[in-house]
């Protein structure tokens, strides 16, 4: 009985493996080993990146029914932020005091909520206060950031760092502390104003518990201390980071890109997506608009240019390693894999994709959070009826998805140009992956990403060999999607409804 169920449950997977095996043998025989191995490895590299973008997309859609059109922007942001950390962290460290101060102010929301609930407000004041406070907050943010030198520095110095012999020279600018300290103070005030706006003076329907207020105050105090530290070390910290070993800096940059991506994702969910769960269409439009806004912001900061992030020394020693094992000693730029010369960094991307797949698998199958996500994909109302705060799980999943996409972005930065629209193509492919794999299934996303990556690589190979238009590689992914949808309308691993 269980044996029969095994075949039924895994039919889609077995079919995919079978088809891939047949195609693989046919390809191997007709293409010869060299071309076959190289094309397969290219496909796996692409597939790993597709997976990192698509995994978050599919979980976000499956759990909360949100089509996140800003997911490609997360990929792009990850690339920019990680690249900044790697090449010139001045920008990130210079902005940190402002962000921390703003967050400290925002954390005060429960405090104001409780304060307001004890006061009386007239009707017109109640109605206009949130909008006015919000506007005031926005104005104060604008004033606090106005003329900030690191925003300008990014424009000019980025081009310079790529050529500068001494990146440290570029990393030491900046306003005197006697002027700069006004900015975090302004940001804190702005955060407090926005917190007041969300606390809604006169709104009696929400109650704020004393514990909640105490936690908010402690949190704000901690963030303020961090703000002070970040303000004092905003020049020393980037210098110290630039003196680190470049390999270490690179791996920390991966982490920083992913964490900042997750943080931005969380902020987006809380501020933009959460108020709109009752109006799903608006959510789609918000994410679409957000993608454009983020791209414009990036263009403002770094110009509409394409940058190339350099590879860390670990993947850039001249010459070719004889095998993957030999590479661990020599750190060459290319590796001999089954007689094929392949860039070692791309092998690292394949490795990173597999690590993320395994990590996600462990998270989904062996943790309580994963169990709640899997249950919520099927029936989130019932999850809530069990006493679980689904809203918080939504935020976590959004952070997880954005973080993974951002990791993909910074991972890709050393071999695709870092530019404002770099996420768009990946977002489109990721949507196709999600449709192929089945909405809400991360293993489906893995299989879909693998299929698309291989299809793109082999499509490119065929186009080159037979002088066809390179468009056939791009078309092949859509054709695969059409075939899968004809055979299984819910996707390979989708649930049948």
């Amino acid at each position: 009985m269980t044996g029969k169920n095994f075949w039924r449950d895994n039919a889609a997977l077995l079919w995919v493996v079978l088809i891939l095996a047949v195609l693989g043998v046919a390809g191997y025989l007709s293409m010869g080993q060299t071309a076959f191995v190289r094309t397969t490895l290219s496909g796996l590299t692409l597939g790993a990146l597709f997976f990192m973008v698509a995994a978050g997309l599919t979980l976000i859609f499956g759990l909360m029914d949100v089509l996140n059109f800003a997911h490609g922007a997360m990929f792009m942001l990850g690339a920019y932020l990680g690249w900044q950390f790697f090449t010139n962290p001045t920008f990130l460290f210079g902005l940190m005091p402002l962000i921390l101060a703003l967050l400290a102010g925002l954390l005060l929301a429960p405090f104001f909520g409780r304060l307001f609930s004890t006061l009386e407000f007239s009707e017109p004041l109640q109605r206009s206060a949130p909008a006015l406070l919000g506007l005031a907050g926005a104005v104060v943010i604008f004033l606090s950031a106005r003329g900030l030198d690191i925003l300008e520095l990014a424009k000019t110095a980025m081009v310079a760092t790529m050529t500068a012999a001494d990146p440290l020279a570029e990393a030491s600018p900046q306003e005197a502390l006697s002027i700069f300290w006004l900015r975090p103070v302004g940001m804190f005030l702005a955060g407090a104003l926005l917190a007041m706006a969300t606390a809604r003076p006169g709104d009696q329907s929400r109650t704020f518990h004393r514990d909640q207020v105490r936690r908010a105050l402690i949190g704000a105090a901690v963030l303020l201390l961090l703000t002070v530290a970040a303000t004092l070390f905003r020049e020393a910290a980037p210098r110290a980071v630039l003196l680190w070993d470049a390999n270490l800096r690179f791996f920390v940059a991966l982490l920083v890109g992913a964490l900042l991506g997750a943080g931005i994702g969380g902020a987006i969910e809380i501020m933009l997506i959460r108020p709109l769960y009752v109006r799903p269409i608006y959510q789609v439009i918000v994410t679409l608009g957000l993608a454009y806004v983020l791209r414009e912001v990036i263009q403002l900061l770094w110009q509409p240019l394409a940058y190339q992030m350099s590879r860390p020394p670990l993947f850039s020693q001249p010459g070719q390693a004889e095998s993957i094992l030999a590479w661990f000693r020599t750190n060459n730029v290319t590796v001999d894999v089954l007689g094929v010369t392949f860039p070692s960094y791309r092998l690292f991307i394949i490795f990173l994709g597999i690590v993320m797949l395994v990590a996600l698998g462990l998270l989904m199958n062996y943790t309580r959070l994963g169990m709640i996500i899997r249950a919520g994909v099927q029936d989130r109302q019932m999850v809530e009826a069990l006493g679980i705060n689904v809203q918080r799980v939504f935020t976590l999943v959004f952070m997880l998805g954005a973080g993974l996409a951002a990791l993909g972005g910074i991972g890709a930065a050393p071999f695709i140009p870092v530019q404002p629209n770099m996420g768009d193509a990946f977002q489109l492919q990721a949507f196709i992956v999600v449709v192929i794999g089945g909405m809400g299934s991360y293993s489906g996303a893995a299989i879909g990403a693998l299929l698309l990556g291989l299809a793109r690589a082999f499509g490119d190979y065929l186009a080159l060999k037979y002088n066809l238009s390179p468009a056939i590689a791009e078309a092949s992914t859509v054709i695969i999607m059409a075939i899968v949808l004809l055979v299984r309308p819910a996707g390979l691993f989708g649930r049948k409804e």
Partner: protein
Amino acid sequence: MEKDNILEVESIHTFIGQFHILEGVSLRVPRGSITVLLGRNGAGKTTTLKSILGLTPPRQGVVRFDGQPIQGKPAYEIAAMGIGYVPEHRAIFRNLTVAENLKIAERKKGDLDRKADFIFSLFPDLKRLYRLPGNHLSGGQQQMLAVARALVADNKLLLIDEPSEGLAPILIEQMMEAIRNLSTTTTVLLVEQNFIMASQLAENYYILDDGKTVHQGRMADLVQDKELIHRMLGTAVRGGGAG
């Protein structure tokens, strides 16, 4: 007097979209009893349960659980106060194993370890099926699991929606036995179309019609009143297979 009611619902009005589904439902559930909600299809029984739990929050009216007003709170907070919910149509998590379906209902660490023996004594089948995914279970087994899931946390009140729906007669017997057993430790508000089952289990009843409570009283009195049963419940009185 009021202290003895674990749940009090006072003239709640609930809308789903533009539809005015509940137009003044009131009921009281005495502590430690089984109370049943009767009524035709579409009378608002399921919506009443969902309104109590906050899944479809009432727009007007008061819901008091254990003496505290709970209307307007998010559903997860209401549930966490100690209300278990068994939805209709065996809504278990099909892609989770039986063990996970129970584990996810824990509110404190170790809930399941403490309750496992009790749950297996009510539904011995589940012990055998413990490692299987939910979609490998039969309809009856899924229904047992849905009830068992509501028993994992310490719930003071269980809202059970149509536990006998689509069950074979022998399973209905087992389900009735289980509900009777668990009502010794907790309070049950039951929605049930099968009148024979309802009449054998419940002490008190409420009849809903068109989103309003139209009759209430002791089950023992209702069973005598064939005319009222026929008028209010129509086809439901046919009885189902438990008899």
